[in-house]
């Protein structure tokens, strides 16, 4: 069906509005990160200003952001890897043996408000002298990643025909061998989707890191608040910090768009 001309004109203008509404604020943030605070306060320089790298100098040199970037990378990477190790086999089992109730246990983690877990976690982990360390931060982020990975991978395994494994069994492989040598290699795109989504959600996670990280393990979303003082805000520095936090994750998402979209919509259309 080819749409009519008036509709095409309407659609084009509507989409221009949508794209503008979604992109303009992000571009405004990036623009502000290149302005001095004097320029940010000067409405005459809203669009025309001489870009300065001073804010990025503040963020990367004085505010210790290189260290925080390292922390965020490490926590997101470790939480994702460990969650994949636990989650992929679990999802396989839950998909092949239709373990609906067991899957529900894992997916509960998506539903429960994080605060209700934080007080007890904080209590136990501070008694174990682990608060402020990486281990507890990685564990808490795994709590976010694991249900996501199980959810995505269950859908993926549901779509892989069991006949492939049965054929491998006939050829003399064990069940676990068939999983390792046939199913797993076939599910690489699914694992990539789950891994990327888990990385993004862990990178963006704020509440768990706010409570459980220490000065040496602070992640980027928590570090942003260093630019918000009680009396005043260093707007230029804040926008540079916000850009440093968001830009890497947006670039990753752009390069692997297909995976991000399929992960975000996983299970949505099965009805």
């Amino acid at each position: 069906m080819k749409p009519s001309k008036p509709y095409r004109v309407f659609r084009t203008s509507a989409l221009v509005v949508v794209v503008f509404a979604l992109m303009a604020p992000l571009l405004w943030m990036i623009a502000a990160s290149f302005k001095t605070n004097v320029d940010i306060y000067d409405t005459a320089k809203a669009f025309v200003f001489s870009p300065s790298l001073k804010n990025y100098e503040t963020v990367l040199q004085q505010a210790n952001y290189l260290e925080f970037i390292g922390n965020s990378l490490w926590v997101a990477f470790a939480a994702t890897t460990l969650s994949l190790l636990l989650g992929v086999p679990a999802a396989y089992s839950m998909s092949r043996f239709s373990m609906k109730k067991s899957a529900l246990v894992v997916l509960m983690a998506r539903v429960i408000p994080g605060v209700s877990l934080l007080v007890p976690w904080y209590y136990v982990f501070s008694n174990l002298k682990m608060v402020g360390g990486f281990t507890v931060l990685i564990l808490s982020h795994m709590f976010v990643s694991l249900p996501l990975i199980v959810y995505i991978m269950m859908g993926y395994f549901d779509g892989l025909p069991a006949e492939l494994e049965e054929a491998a069994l006939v050829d003399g492989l064990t069940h676990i061998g068939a999983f390792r040598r046939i199913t797993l290699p076939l599910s690489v795109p699914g694992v990539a989707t789950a891994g990327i989504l888990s990385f993004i959600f862990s990178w963006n996670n704020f509440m768990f890191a706010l409570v459980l990280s220490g000065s040496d393990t602070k992640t980027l979303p928590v570090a942003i608040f260093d630019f918000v003082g009680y009396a005043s805000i260093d707007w230029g520095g804040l926008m540079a910090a916000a850009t440093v936090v968001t830009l890497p994750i947006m670039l990753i998402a752009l390069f692997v768009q297909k995976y991000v979209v399929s992960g975000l919509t996983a299970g949505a259309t099965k009805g």
Partner: protein
Amino acid sequence: MSRWANEHRKWLFAAPAMAFVAVLIIFPVAWTGYLSLTDAEGSVRAESEFIGFQNYLDVLTDTDRFWPAVWRTVLFTGVVLLFEVVLGMAIALLLWRPFRGEKWVRVAILLPLVATPVAVGMMWRLIFDPNIGMANQLLGWIGIGPQPWLAGQHSALPTTMFIDIWQWTPMVVLILLAGLTSLSDEPQEAARIDGASSWQRFRHVTLPLLMPTVIVAILLRGIDALKTFDILYATKGRGGGSFHEVETLNVYAYGLSFDYNDYGVSSTVLIIFFLIIIGVMWALTYRKKGLGR
């Protein structure tokens, strides 16, 4: 060993993940339930006394902080869901059929979704700043006076809703678009041949077929909207602002726990919040059986 592993692979594969989540959930929830029956406060290690359902009585009769927080949570979730679903549906329909430049629109839709929520909060905080923000400059150009936005006692909550809608409408678009593309064209064609207008085709053919996907979108977004924290904390800070103007249940419970260390009361609020979420989940999944997965 390997034979044993093969026979028991079902649980061998599933148990570690389940155990991990269960340990991190069951103990904390049970402990929160216990704390809600005590007067624990100060330090998590301090002695506390069992006081039965006193906290529940106090919380449920608290019209100062608790009920306003419940009301804000309901309002916030209801309003953002309404806007996100309606706008999301409209945008998804616009994107349904192929067109030139599709790739760019998809990029624009993906970016807010992956952007870090606290950074998004900070970004809008600058745009909505009453004195130097772009929002008021734009209003000025079309002759409308400056608005307080996040700084106003009554405008703060709607403004945070706006930010949530900006960030998460794309999520609904993606889900609905996936649903739309999986629909077969035949019912559409049949309705067209029968002479149905495009609105009639949407209302009586597309929408009913898409309903399961719409419910998934509402469910996923609804759970997260009820628990919104990052944007509220980034824009208004502790306690949801000086007049608690954006204090939802989640923000209230966080403040009670980590700003005031009032563990007994905060646990009570959390148990009630928890029951509300389970209730909403149940009501929605009841409509659509087997949605647990």
